């Protein structure tokens, strides 16, 4: 049966140095997890672990399947340093801000 594609619920916040993306992807097969930057898109994909064939379904209230979501990555992100980690069903992607866009004090020169 074709797996259904799920758009994972996502929180995004900004700190002084980076943007942090938290994606809910419970029960994934870690070998299928892929996080990549293509052109200006951040693409996240994974498949969830299936319940063993010996289990018959009695009642279904949610479905697991393939996760897929894309975000646009602007010029404010340092793409070389994007990091991702997976823990307790949450994929955390840290996108550090590019040096050029970090807040800085501009010295005022006097003649």
């Amino acid at each position, binding site marked *: 049966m074709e797996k*259904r594609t799920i758009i994972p619920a996502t929180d*995004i*916040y900004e700190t002084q140095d980076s943007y942090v993306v938290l994606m809910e992807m419970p029960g994934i097969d870690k070998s299928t997890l892929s996080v990549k930057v293509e052109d200006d898109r951040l693409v996240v994909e994974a498949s969830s672990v299936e319940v063993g064939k010996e289990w018959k379904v009695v009642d*279904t209230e949610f479905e697991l399947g393939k996760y897929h979501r894309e975000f646009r990555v602007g010029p404010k992100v340092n793409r070389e340093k994007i990091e991702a980690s997976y823990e*307790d*069903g949450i994929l955390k992607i840290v996108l550090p801000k590019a040096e050029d866009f970090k807040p800085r004090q501009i010295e005022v020169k006097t003649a």
Partner: protein
Amino acid sequence: MMNFFYELERMKHLMNSLLDTPFFWEEVREGRLNYANIYENESGYMIQMLGPGVKKENVEVNYENDLLTITIHKPEEKMEDVRWIRRERLQPVETRSYRLSADLDPTKIEAKLVDGVLLVFLPRRAQRETKKIDVKVK
């Protein structure tokens, strides 16, 4: 007379249930993740629930008077000094109870939390021998 607001609410619910991702996130945020899948095999039942971000200490599984209660508490996330750009995740706080049938063995209930998925196993009792009792009629 048709209640316009009622119809609107009903429409929102319908839209949310039709799509993979809720159409009205604010609506859903008020609600809570409340979903469970139940599976069965020869040895017993398995309840599957989602708790992304949930740790072992946030989960309580209790059995009392034939009632199995599963509670998932909200995990503590320290988020100070951040600016939220997008918030879609729901609160995984919930309690659900199931009345267990007598052929399940409550002493052998097991719970496992793997990558934000809670699995509760409810094994059946070992097959009991049927005993024939002669009824004496005086």
